[in-house]
Protein backbone atom coordinates (compact mmCIF):
# COMPACT_ATOMS: atom_id res chain seq x y z
CA UNK A 1 0.00 0.00 0.00
CA UNK A 2 2.82 2.30 0.95
CA UNK A 3 4.58 1.65 -2.36
CA UNK A 4 1.33 2.35 -4.29
CA UNK A 5 0.93 5.64 -2.42
CA UNK A 6 4.52 6.58 -3.22
CA UNK A 7 4.11 5.74 -6.90
CA UNK A 8 0.84 7.74 -7.02
CA UNK A 9 2.60 10.68 -5.41
CA UNK A 10 5.41 10.36 -7.94
CA UNK A 11 2.84 10.41 -10.73
CA UNK A 12 1.21 13.52 -9.33
CA UNK A 13 4.58 15.24 -9.14
CA UNK A 14 5.46 14.21 -12.65
CA UNK A 15 2.30 15.85 -13.93
CA UNK A 16 3.92 19.08 -12.84
CA UNK A 17 6.88 18.49 -15.16
CA UNK A 18 5.16 20.29 -18.00
CA UNK A 19 5.65 24.02 -18.25
CA UNK A 20 2.71 26.33 -17.81
CA UNK A 21 2.51 28.05 -21.23
CA UNK A 22 -0.14 26.45 -23.39
CA UNK A 23 -0.39 26.59 -27.15
CA UNK A 24 -2.93 24.87 -29.36
CA UNK A 25 -1.88 22.56 -32.15
CA UNK A 26 -3.33 24.35 -35.15
CA UNK A 27 -6.26 22.82 -36.99
CA UNK A 28 -9.02 24.33 -39.07
CA UNK A 29 -11.71 23.64 -41.60
CA UNK A 30 -11.92 26.80 -43.72
CA UNK A 31 -14.91 25.62 -45.82
CA UNK A 32 -17.01 24.78 -42.78
CA UNK A 33 -16.12 28.11 -41.17
CA UNK A 34 -17.15 30.02 -44.31
CA UNK A 35 -20.53 28.32 -44.29
CA UNK A 36 -21.35 29.63 -40.81
CA UNK A 37 -23.82 32.52 -40.90
CA UNK A 38 -23.41 33.97 -37.44
CA UNK A 39 -20.59 33.43 -34.97
CA UNK A 40 -20.74 34.54 -31.36
CA UNK A 41 -17.55 35.92 -29.95
CA UNK A 42 -16.52 35.29 -26.37
CA UNK A 43 -13.43 36.61 -24.65
CA UNK A 44 -12.19 34.53 -21.71
CA UNK A 45 -10.42 36.23 -18.78
CA UNK A 46 -6.67 36.74 -19.07
CA UNK A 47 -4.84 33.45 -18.52
CA UNK A 48 -2.56 33.51 -15.44
CA UNK A 49 -3.85 36.90 -14.25
CA UNK A 50 -2.91 40.33 -15.60
CA UNK A 51 0.68 39.41 -16.35
CA UNK A 52 2.96 36.43 -15.90
CA UNK A 53 6.72 36.21 -16.20
CA UNK A 54 8.37 33.31 -17.94
CA UNK A 55 10.70 31.27 -15.78
CA UNK A 56 14.25 30.70 -16.83
CA UNK A 57 14.67 26.97 -17.16
CA UNK A 58 17.96 25.89 -15.69
CA UNK A 59 18.35 22.16 -16.24
CA UNK A 60 21.73 21.98 -14.55
CA UNK A 61 20.36 23.58 -11.45
CA UNK A 62 17.57 21.03 -11.21
CA UNK A 63 20.04 18.22 -11.70
CA UNK A 64 22.43 19.49 -9.06
CA UNK A 65 19.62 19.84 -6.54
CA UNK A 66 18.41 16.35 -7.40
CA UNK A 67 21.85 14.85 -7.03
CA UNK A 68 22.23 16.49 -3.61
CA UNK A 69 19.07 14.77 -2.52
CA UNK A 70 20.21 11.49 -4.05
CA UNK A 71 23.46 11.84 -2.10
CA UNK A 72 21.56 12.62 1.09
CA UNK A 73 19.70 9.30 0.97
CA UNK A 74 22.97 7.47 1.66
CA UNK A 75 23.20 9.17 5.04
CA UNK A 76 19.59 8.30 5.91
CA UNK A 77 19.05 6.29 9.14
CA UNK A 78 18.95 2.49 8.78
CA UNK A 79 15.54 0.79 8.28
CA UNK A 80 13.69 -0.36 11.42
CA UNK A 81 14.38 -3.88 12.72
CA UNK A 82 12.33 -6.58 11.03
CA UNK A 83 12.46 -4.89 7.61
CA UNK A 84 13.32 -7.41 4.91
CA UNK A 85 16.12 -6.71 2.46
CA UNK A 86 13.60 -6.36 -0.40
CA UNK A 87 11.42 -3.91 1.55
CA UNK A 88 14.46 -1.86 2.49
CA UNK A 89 15.64 -1.74 -1.12
CA UNK A 90 12.15 -0.78 -2.39
CA UNK A 91 11.82 1.91 0.26
CA UNK A 92 15.28 3.23 -0.60
CA UNK A 93 14.50 3.45 -4.29
CA UNK A 94 11.06 5.00 -3.75
CA UNK A 95 12.43 7.40 -1.12
CA UNK A 96 15.23 8.48 -3.42
CA UNK A 97 12.81 8.98 -6.29
CA UNK A 98 10.40 11.02 -4.21
CA UNK A 99 13.28 13.07 -2.86
CA UNK A 100 14.54 13.72 -6.35
CA UNK A 101 11.12 14.72 -7.62
CA UNK A 102 10.38 16.93 -4.64
CA UNK A 103 13.74 18.67 -4.95
CA UNK A 104 13.21 19.19 -8.66
CA UNK A 105 9.72 20.60 -8.16
CA UNK A 106 10.93 22.82 -5.34
CA UNK A 107 13.66 24.22 -7.57
CA UNK A 108 11.10 24.92 -10.28
CA UNK A 109 8.72 26.51 -7.78
CA UNK A 110 11.51 28.75 -6.53
CA UNK A 111 12.44 29.69 -10.10
CA UNK A 112 8.80 30.53 -10.85
CA UNK A 113 8.46 32.69 -7.77
CA UNK A 114 11.83 34.38 -8.42
CA UNK A 115 10.69 35.16 -11.96
CA UNK A 116 7.33 36.64 -10.97
CA UNK A 117 8.46 38.70 -7.97
CA UNK A 118 10.33 41.54 -9.75
CA UNK A 119 7.24 42.25 -11.89
CA UNK A 120 4.85 42.61 -8.95
CA UNK A 121 4.78 46.45 -9.00
CA UNK A 122 3.82 46.29 -12.68
CA UNK A 123 1.10 43.70 -12.01
CA UNK A 124 -0.36 45.93 -9.29
CA UNK A 125 -0.30 48.95 -11.60
CA UNK A 126 -2.09 46.93 -14.30
CA UNK A 127 -4.78 45.81 -11.89
CA UNK A 128 -5.37 49.44 -10.99
CA UNK A 129 -5.82 50.21 -14.68
CA UNK A 130 -8.42 47.45 -15.25
CA UNK A 131 -6.24 45.63 -17.75
CA UNK A 132 -8.80 42.84 -18.13
CA UNK A 133 -11.40 45.25 -19.51
CA UNK A 134 -8.88 47.11 -21.69
CA UNK A 135 -7.70 43.91 -23.39
CA UNK A 136 -11.24 42.62 -23.90
CA UNK A 137 -12.44 45.89 -25.47
CA UNK A 138 -9.43 46.17 -27.80
CA UNK A 139 -9.71 42.54 -28.85
CA UNK A 140 -13.46 42.76 -29.51
CA UNK A 141 -12.89 45.94 -31.50
CA UNK A 142 -10.08 44.33 -33.53
CA UNK A 143 -12.13 41.24 -34.34
CA UNK A 144 -15.42 43.03 -35.12
CA UNK A 145 -13.77 45.43 -37.58
CA UNK A 146 -12.00 42.66 -39.51
CA UNK A 147 -12.96 41.36 -42.97
CA UNK A 148 -13.76 38.02 -41.38
CA UNK A 149 -16.42 39.68 -39.17
CA UNK A 150 -18.00 41.31 -42.19
CA UNK A 151 -18.24 38.09 -44.20
CA UNK A 152 -19.28 35.80 -41.36
CA UNK A 153 -21.33 38.15 -39.16
CA UNK A 154 -19.29 37.99 -36.01
CA UNK A 155 -21.19 39.22 -32.99
CA UNK A 156 -19.99 39.90 -29.47
CA UNK A 157 -22.95 38.60 -27.50
CA UNK A 158 -23.82 35.77 -25.10
CA UNK A 159 -24.41 32.41 -26.76
CA UNK A 160 -28.20 32.15 -27.43
CA UNK A 161 -28.32 28.35 -27.42
CA UNK A 162 -25.99 25.40 -27.10
CA UNK A 163 -24.60 24.41 -30.45
CA UNK A 164 -24.54 27.92 -31.95
CA UNK A 165 -21.12 28.70 -33.45
CA UNK A 166 -18.91 30.32 -30.85
CA UNK A 167 -15.40 31.69 -31.15
CA UNK A 168 -13.69 31.68 -27.76
CA UNK A 169 -10.53 33.72 -27.37
CA UNK A 170 -8.24 33.22 -24.38
CA UNK A 171 -5.70 36.06 -24.20
CA UNK A 172 -2.58 36.13 -22.05
CA UNK A 173 0.17 38.67 -21.42
CA UNK A 174 3.68 37.59 -20.55
CA UNK A 175 7.05 39.19 -20.04
CA UNK A 176 10.22 37.26 -20.64
CA UNK A 177 12.39 36.48 -17.65
CA UNK A 178 14.54 39.57 -18.21
CA UNK A 179 11.32 41.66 -18.35
CA UNK A 180 12.52 43.07 -21.66
CA UNK A 181 10.16 41.45 -24.18
CA UNK A 182 6.38 41.55 -24.03
CA UNK A 183 4.47 38.59 -25.45
CA UNK A 184 0.76 38.64 -26.13
CA UNK A 185 -0.93 35.37 -27.02
CA UNK A 186 -4.46 34.45 -28.06
CA UNK A 187 -5.56 30.83 -27.83
CA UNK A 188 -8.55 30.63 -30.17
CA UNK A 189 -11.17 27.91 -30.55
CA UNK A 190 -14.23 27.92 -32.78
CA UNK A 191 -16.95 25.41 -31.85
CA UNK A 192 -20.11 24.75 -33.81
CA UNK A 193 -21.88 21.97 -31.99
CA UNK A 194 -19.58 19.09 -32.93
CA UNK A 195 -17.19 17.37 -30.58
CA UNK A 196 -14.10 18.71 -32.31
CA UNK A 197 -13.63 22.44 -32.78
CA UNK A 198 -13.81 23.73 -36.36
CA UNK A 199 -10.75 25.86 -35.71
CA UNK A 200 -7.95 25.90 -33.13
CA UNK A 201 -4.85 28.00 -33.12
CA UNK A 202 -2.60 30.24 -31.07
CA UNK A 203 -1.50 33.62 -32.36
CA UNK A 204 1.35 35.28 -30.52
CA UNK A 205 3.05 38.67 -30.77
CA UNK A 206 6.57 39.31 -29.47
CA UNK A 207 7.71 42.88 -28.96
CA UNK A 208 11.29 43.91 -29.67
CA UNK A 209 13.57 43.90 -26.63
CA UNK A 210 13.78 47.06 -24.57
CA UNK A 211 17.54 47.11 -25.04
CA UNK A 212 18.17 46.90 -21.28
CA UNK A 213 19.56 43.87 -19.51
CA UNK A 214 18.68 45.06 -16.02
CA UNK A 215 15.29 43.93 -14.71
CA UNK A 216 14.73 47.08 -12.65
CA UNK A 217 15.46 49.28 -15.66
CA UNK A 218 12.98 47.27 -17.70
CA UNK A 219 10.40 47.52 -14.98
CA UNK A 220 10.90 51.27 -14.94
CA UNK A 221 10.59 51.35 -18.75
CA UNK A 222 7.21 49.58 -18.73
CA UNK A 223 5.83 51.59 -15.80
CA UNK A 224 7.05 55.05 -16.88
CA UNK A 225 4.54 57.78 -17.79
CA UNK A 226 1.54 55.85 -16.49
CA UNK A 227 2.42 52.62 -18.38
CA UNK A 228 2.73 54.44 -21.70
CA UNK A 229 5.26 52.02 -23.25
CA UNK A 230 3.40 48.96 -21.94
CA UNK A 231 0.04 50.06 -23.29
CA UNK A 232 1.58 51.22 -26.57
CA UNK A 233 3.11 47.78 -27.12
CA UNK A 234 -0.04 46.00 -25.96
CA UNK A 235 -2.19 47.94 -28.44
CA UNK A 236 0.18 46.97 -31.26
CA UNK A 237 0.09 43.37 -30.05
CA UNK A 238 -3.70 43.19 -29.91
CA UNK A 239 -4.13 44.86 -33.32
CA UNK A 240 -1.65 42.45 -34.97
CA UNK A 241 -2.88 39.27 -33.30
CA UNK A 242 -6.53 40.09 -34.00
CA UNK A 243 -5.73 40.86 -37.63
CA UNK A 244 -3.77 37.63 -38.22
CA UNK A 245 -6.36 35.59 -36.33
CA UNK A 246 -9.11 37.00 -38.54
CA UNK A 247 -7.06 36.23 -41.67
CA UNK A 248 -6.35 32.73 -40.41
CA UNK A 249 -10.06 32.08 -39.76
CA UNK A 250 -10.86 33.52 -43.16
CA UNK A 251 -8.25 31.42 -44.94
CA UNK A 252 -6.71 34.61 -46.33
CA UNK A 253 -3.24 34.46 -44.76
CA UNK A 254 -0.30 35.10 -47.07
CA UNK A 255 1.03 31.85 -48.55
CA UNK A 256 3.72 30.36 -46.33
CA UNK A 257 7.11 29.42 -47.72
CA UNK A 258 7.16 25.71 -48.42
CA UNK A 259 10.55 25.04 -46.89
CA UNK A 260 10.78 24.80 -43.16
CA UNK A 261 13.83 26.57 -41.75
CA UNK A 262 15.27 27.95 -38.55
CA UNK A 263 14.80 31.70 -38.87
CA UNK A 264 16.80 34.33 -37.06
CA UNK A 265 15.02 37.58 -36.33
CA UNK A 266 16.88 40.65 -35.07
CA UNK A 267 15.42 43.70 -33.43
CA UNK A 268 16.59 46.37 -31.02
CA UNK A 269 19.98 44.92 -30.01
CA UNK A 270 18.68 41.39 -29.70
CA UNK A 271 17.75 38.37 -31.74
CA UNK A 272 15.62 35.28 -31.52
CA UNK A 273 15.56 32.01 -33.42
CA UNK A 274 12.50 30.03 -34.37
CA UNK A 275 11.82 27.17 -36.74
CA UNK A 276 8.88 27.28 -39.06
CA UNK A 277 7.57 28.50 -42.39
CA UNK A 278 7.89 32.16 -43.23
CA UNK A 279 4.57 33.90 -43.86
CA UNK A 280 5.62 37.51 -44.20
CA UNK A 281 8.66 39.67 -43.60
CA UNK A 282 8.88 43.46 -43.48
CA UNK A 283 11.40 45.91 -42.03
CA UNK A 284 9.41 45.93 -38.80
CA UNK A 285 7.86 42.48 -38.39
CA UNK A 286 8.51 38.88 -39.27
CA UNK A 287 5.53 36.56 -39.32
CA UNK A 288 6.06 32.79 -39.12
CA UNK A 289 3.96 29.69 -38.92
CA UNK A 290 5.79 27.66 -36.28
CA UNK A 291 5.95 23.86 -36.00
CA UNK A 292 2.63 23.74 -34.13
CA UNK A 293 1.08 25.69 -36.99
CA UNK A 294 0.75 28.70 -34.66
CA UNK A 295 1.27 32.19 -36.02
CA UNK A 296 4.12 34.16 -34.46
CA UNK A 297 4.38 37.88 -35.14
CA UNK A 298 7.85 38.90 -34.08
CA UNK A 299 8.96 42.49 -33.96
CA UNK A 300 12.23 42.59 -35.89
CA UNK A 301 13.75 41.93 -39.27
CA UNK A 302 14.63 38.57 -40.70
CA UNK A 303 18.39 37.97 -40.80
CA UNK A 304 19.38 35.91 -43.79
Amino acid sequence: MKIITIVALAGALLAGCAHSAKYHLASGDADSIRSLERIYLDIAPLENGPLSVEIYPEPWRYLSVSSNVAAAQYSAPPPPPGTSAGQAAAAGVAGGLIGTLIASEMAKGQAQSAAQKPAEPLVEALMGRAIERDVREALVDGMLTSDFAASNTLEYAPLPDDGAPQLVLQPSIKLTNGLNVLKFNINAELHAGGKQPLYRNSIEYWSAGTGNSDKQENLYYWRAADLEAFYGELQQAIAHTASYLAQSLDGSLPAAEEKQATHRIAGNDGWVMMRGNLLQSTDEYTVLRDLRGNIKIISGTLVL
Partner: protein
Amino acid sequence: MKTLLRLSIAAIFAALVGCATPQVPVPLDQGFYTADNKTVGLMLEAPKTPGLALEGNIGLLDYAIIAAATSSLSSHIESQDLGEFLAVAEELSQSLENEGFQVVRLEVPAKAPKLAKFKDPDGKDTTYFAAKDHRTLAAEYQVDYLLKLTATSAGLARPYYGFIPTDAPRAVFNVHGEMIDMSSNQLLWYANINHAGYATGEWDEGPNFPGLTNTYYVVMNKARQDVVNALAKRDTSVIALNGDDDSAAAASAGAPAAAEQQETQQQ
Protein backbone atom coordinates in the same frame (compact mmCIF):
# COMPACT_ATOMS: atom_id res chain seq x y z
CA MET B 1 52.97 -5.68 3.94
CA LYS B 2 53.91 -5.87 0.29
CA THR B 3 50.23 -6.12 -0.68
CA LEU B 4 49.41 -3.10 1.47
CA LEU B 5 52.14 -1.12 -0.26
CA ARG B 6 50.84 -2.11 -3.69
CA LEU B 7 47.29 -1.16 -2.69
CA SER B 8 48.50 2.21 -1.41
CA ILE B 9 50.32 2.92 -4.68
CA ALA B 10 47.22 1.92 -6.65
CA ALA B 11 45.04 4.22 -4.51
CA ILE B 12 47.44 7.14 -4.93
CA PHE B 13 47.56 6.52 -8.68
CA ALA B 14 43.75 6.43 -8.88
CA ALA B 15 43.51 9.65 -6.90
CA LEU B 16 46.04 11.34 -9.16
CA VAL B 17 44.10 10.32 -12.27
CA GLY B 18 41.06 12.03 -10.78
CA CYS B 19 43.09 15.19 -10.22
CA ALA B 20 44.00 15.69 -13.90
CA THR B 21 43.32 19.33 -14.73
CA PRO B 22 40.85 19.74 -17.56
CA GLN B 23 41.93 21.96 -20.43
CA VAL B 24 40.69 25.51 -19.89
CA PRO B 25 38.95 27.23 -22.83
CA VAL B 26 41.36 29.04 -25.14
CA PRO B 27 39.94 31.97 -27.14
CA LEU B 28 41.21 32.12 -30.72
CA ASP B 29 44.66 33.65 -30.90
CA GLN B 30 44.09 36.50 -33.37
CA GLY B 31 47.72 36.09 -34.46
CA PHE B 32 46.32 33.17 -36.48
CA TYR B 33 44.88 35.65 -38.97
CA THR B 34 48.29 37.23 -39.64
CA ALA B 35 49.58 34.00 -41.23
CA ASP B 36 50.02 34.09 -45.02
CA ASN B 37 49.27 31.29 -47.49
CA LYS B 38 48.61 28.72 -44.82
CA THR B 39 46.42 25.67 -45.09
CA VAL B 40 43.74 24.80 -42.58
CA GLY B 41 42.51 21.23 -42.36
CA LEU B 42 38.88 21.18 -41.27
CA MET B 43 37.63 17.98 -39.66
CA LEU B 44 33.95 17.90 -38.72
CA GLU B 45 32.54 14.99 -36.77
CA ALA B 46 28.90 14.55 -35.89
CA PRO B 47 26.53 11.67 -35.22
CA LYS B 48 24.56 10.51 -38.26
CA THR B 49 21.28 11.39 -36.62
CA PRO B 50 20.28 13.14 -33.40
CA GLY B 51 19.10 10.89 -30.58
CA LEU B 52 17.54 10.69 -27.13
CA ALA B 53 20.07 10.43 -24.29
CA LEU B 54 18.96 8.92 -20.99
CA GLU B 55 20.54 10.32 -17.82
CA GLY B 56 20.61 9.11 -14.23
CA ASN B 57 20.58 5.83 -12.32
CA ILE B 58 19.20 3.44 -14.91
CA GLY B 59 19.47 -0.35 -14.89
CA LEU B 60 19.22 -2.72 -17.85
CA LEU B 61 15.55 -3.53 -17.21
CA ASP B 62 14.84 0.19 -16.83
CA TYR B 63 16.43 0.79 -20.24
CA ALA B 64 14.03 -1.72 -21.79
CA ILE B 65 11.00 -0.08 -20.15
CA ILE B 66 12.14 3.43 -21.11
CA ALA B 67 12.87 2.36 -24.70
CA ALA B 68 9.31 1.05 -25.03
CA ALA B 69 7.81 4.17 -23.44
CA THR B 70 9.83 6.64 -25.50
CA SER B 71 9.89 4.88 -28.87
CA SER B 72 7.72 7.55 -30.49
CA LEU B 73 9.93 10.40 -29.20
CA SER B 74 13.14 8.55 -30.08
CA SER B 75 12.09 7.74 -33.60
CA HIS B 76 10.88 11.31 -34.15
CA ILE B 77 14.15 12.91 -33.04
CA GLU B 78 16.14 10.37 -35.04
CA SER B 79 14.21 11.44 -38.13
CA GLN B 80 15.50 15.01 -37.75
CA ASP B 81 18.77 16.11 -39.31
CA LEU B 82 21.95 17.97 -38.47
CA GLY B 83 22.20 19.74 -41.82
CA GLU B 84 22.07 23.24 -40.37
CA PHE B 85 25.00 22.40 -38.08
CA LEU B 86 26.98 20.62 -40.80
CA ALA B 87 26.66 23.79 -42.91
CA VAL B 88 29.13 25.37 -40.49
CA ALA B 89 31.94 23.71 -42.49
CA GLU B 90 30.93 25.58 -45.63
CA GLU B 91 30.50 28.83 -43.70
CA LEU B 92 33.92 28.54 -42.02
CA SER B 93 35.64 27.53 -45.25
CA GLN B 94 34.21 30.61 -46.94
CA SER B 95 35.28 33.00 -44.21
CA LEU B 96 38.78 31.49 -43.88
CA GLU B 97 39.29 31.59 -47.64
CA ASN B 98 38.25 35.23 -47.60
CA GLU B 99 41.09 35.80 -45.13
CA GLY B 100 43.63 34.18 -47.47
CA PHE B 101 43.74 30.64 -46.08
CA GLN B 102 43.44 27.48 -48.08
CA VAL B 103 40.91 25.15 -46.53
CA VAL B 104 41.04 21.39 -46.93
CA ARG B 105 38.20 19.20 -45.72
CA LEU B 106 39.57 16.18 -43.85
CA GLU B 107 37.69 12.96 -43.35
CA VAL B 108 37.38 11.71 -39.80
CA PRO B 109 39.57 8.58 -39.66
CA ALA B 110 37.65 5.38 -38.98
CA LYS B 111 40.16 4.54 -36.28
CA ALA B 112 41.70 7.34 -34.22
CA PRO B 113 45.45 7.57 -34.97
CA LYS B 114 47.75 6.56 -32.14
CA LEU B 115 49.51 9.70 -31.05
CA ALA B 116 52.18 10.13 -28.42
CA LYS B 117 51.46 12.22 -25.36
CA PHE B 118 52.67 15.80 -25.54
CA LYS B 119 54.18 17.49 -22.52
CA ASP B 120 53.56 21.20 -22.15
CA PRO B 121 57.07 22.76 -21.85
CA ASP B 122 55.76 25.30 -19.33
CA GLY B 123 52.54 24.26 -17.63
CA LYS B 124 52.25 27.55 -15.75
CA ASP B 125 51.98 29.96 -18.66
CA THR B 126 48.86 30.64 -20.74
CA THR B 127 50.18 28.99 -23.88
CA TYR B 128 48.42 25.66 -24.11
CA PHE B 129 49.20 22.58 -26.15
CA ALA B 130 47.15 19.63 -27.34
CA ALA B 131 47.42 16.67 -24.98
CA LYS B 132 48.51 14.40 -27.88
CA ASP B 133 51.29 15.21 -30.30
CA HIS B 134 49.59 16.13 -33.58
CA ARG B 135 52.83 17.24 -35.26
CA THR B 136 53.28 13.73 -36.59
CA LEU B 137 50.06 14.17 -38.61
CA ALA B 138 51.23 17.35 -40.39
CA ALA B 139 52.86 15.46 -43.24
CA GLU B 140 49.93 13.07 -43.66
CA TYR B 141 47.29 15.80 -43.72
CA GLN B 142 49.49 18.40 -45.51
CA VAL B 143 48.05 21.22 -43.43
CA ASP B 144 49.47 23.96 -41.21
CA TYR B 145 46.53 24.09 -38.83
CA LEU B 146 44.05 21.44 -37.83
CA LEU B 147 40.55 22.66 -36.97
CA LYS B 148 38.53 19.89 -35.34
CA LEU B 149 34.84 20.29 -34.58
CA THR B 150 32.93 17.49 -32.89
CA ALA B 151 29.23 17.48 -32.06
CA THR B 152 29.48 15.53 -28.81
CA SER B 153 25.73 15.57 -28.06
CA ALA B 154 22.90 16.19 -30.47
CA GLY B 155 19.23 15.65 -29.85
CA LEU B 156 17.31 15.31 -26.62
CA ALA B 157 18.18 14.34 -23.06
CA ARG B 158 15.97 13.32 -20.17
CA PRO B 159 16.87 12.43 -16.58
CA TYR B 160 15.48 9.26 -15.01
CA TYR B 161 15.43 7.57 -11.66
CA GLY B 162 15.16 3.93 -12.56
CA PHE B 163 12.54 3.95 -15.28
CA ILE B 164 10.68 6.98 -13.91
CA PRO B 165 11.44 10.34 -15.57
CA THR B 166 12.33 13.07 -13.09
CA ASP B 167 12.03 16.00 -15.50
CA ALA B 168 10.73 16.94 -18.94
CA PRO B 169 13.05 16.17 -21.87
CA ARG B 170 15.21 18.99 -23.14
CA ALA B 171 17.00 19.63 -26.41
CA VAL B 172 20.79 19.55 -26.23
CA PHE B 173 23.54 20.37 -28.64
CA ASN B 174 27.16 20.29 -27.47
CA VAL B 175 30.16 20.97 -29.63
CA HIS B 176 33.82 20.49 -28.84
CA GLY B 177 36.20 22.51 -30.98
CA GLU B 178 39.95 22.93 -31.17
CA MET B 179 42.47 24.48 -33.54
CA ILE B 180 45.99 23.09 -33.38
CA ASP B 181 49.11 24.60 -34.91
CA MET B 182 50.61 21.53 -36.55
CA SER B 183 54.17 22.87 -36.36
CA SER B 184 54.22 23.41 -32.59
CA ASN B 185 51.16 21.42 -31.35
CA GLN B 186 49.94 24.65 -29.72
CA LEU B 187 46.22 25.04 -29.09
CA LEU B 188 45.19 28.22 -30.87
CA TRP B 189 41.57 27.69 -29.92
CA TYR B 190 39.84 25.30 -27.55
CA ALA B 191 36.18 25.42 -26.58
CA ASN B 192 33.28 23.36 -25.36
CA ILE B 193 30.07 24.95 -26.55
CA ASN B 194 27.01 23.59 -24.79
CA HIS B 195 23.43 24.58 -25.44
CA ALA B 196 20.26 23.13 -23.98
CA GLY B 197 16.66 24.22 -23.78
CA TYR B 198 13.18 23.05 -22.85
CA ALA B 199 10.24 23.14 -25.20
CA THR B 200 8.16 26.30 -25.08
CA GLY B 201 4.73 25.20 -23.97
CA GLU B 202 3.86 21.52 -23.68
CA TRP B 203 6.51 19.05 -24.83
CA ASP B 204 4.43 15.87 -25.07
CA GLU B 205 2.71 16.56 -28.38
CA GLY B 206 3.38 13.38 -30.32
CA PRO B 207 3.88 12.22 -32.95
CA ASN B 208 5.66 15.37 -34.16
CA PHE B 209 6.66 16.97 -30.84
CA PRO B 210 6.74 20.49 -32.35
CA GLY B 211 7.86 22.31 -29.19
CA LEU B 212 10.86 20.06 -28.60
CA THR B 213 11.71 19.92 -32.29
CA ASN B 214 11.77 23.71 -32.48
CA THR B 215 14.07 23.89 -29.45
CA TYR B 216 16.35 21.23 -30.94
CA TYR B 217 16.88 23.29 -34.10
CA VAL B 218 17.29 26.49 -32.08
CA VAL B 219 20.00 25.06 -29.80
CA MET B 220 21.75 23.50 -32.80
CA ASN B 221 21.82 26.83 -34.61
CA LYS B 222 23.02 28.61 -31.49
CA ALA B 223 25.91 26.17 -31.22
CA ARG B 224 26.72 26.73 -34.89
CA GLN B 225 26.56 30.49 -34.40
CA ASP B 226 28.87 30.26 -31.37
CA VAL B 227 31.43 28.29 -33.39
CA VAL B 228 31.38 30.90 -36.16
CA ASN B 229 31.61 33.77 -33.64
CA ALA B 230 34.47 32.12 -31.74
CA LEU B 231 36.52 31.70 -34.92
CA ALA B 232 35.72 35.11 -36.37
CA LYS B 233 38.42 37.66 -37.05
CA ARG B 234 38.08 40.46 -34.53
CA ASP B 235 38.57 44.12 -35.27
CA THR B 236 41.87 44.57 -33.46
CA SER B 237 41.57 48.36 -33.45
CA VAL B 238 38.41 48.11 -31.34
CA ILE B 239 40.14 45.74 -28.96
CA ALA B 240 43.06 48.13 -28.61
CA LEU B 241 40.80 51.13 -27.94
CA ASN B 242 38.77 49.32 -25.35
CA GLY B 243 41.74 47.55 -23.86
CA ASP B 244 39.61 44.47 -23.48
CA ASP B 245 40.22 41.37 -25.54
CA ASP B 246 36.77 40.00 -24.81
CA SER B 247 34.84 43.06 -25.91
CA ALA B 248 34.00 41.73 -29.34
CA ALA B 249 32.98 38.37 -27.95
CA ALA B 250 30.82 40.07 -25.38
CA ALA B 251 29.16 42.16 -28.05
CA SER B 252 28.12 39.09 -29.97
CA ALA B 253 27.25 36.92 -27.00
CA GLY B 254 25.56 39.51 -24.83
CA ALA B 255 23.08 40.75 -27.34
CA PRO B 256 20.91 37.72 -27.56
CA ALA B 257 17.54 38.55 -27.10
CA ALA B 258 15.72 38.17 -24.28
CA ALA B 259 13.06 36.02 -25.49
CA GLU B 260 15.34 33.22 -26.53
CA GLN B 261 17.26 33.39 -23.31
CA GLN B 262 14.25 31.76 -21.75
CA GLU B 263 14.76 28.70 -23.80
CA THR B 264 18.48 28.15 -23.84
CA GLN B 265 21.51 28.88 -21.84
CA GLN B 266 25.16 28.38 -22.29
CA GLN B 267 27.08 26.53 -19.66
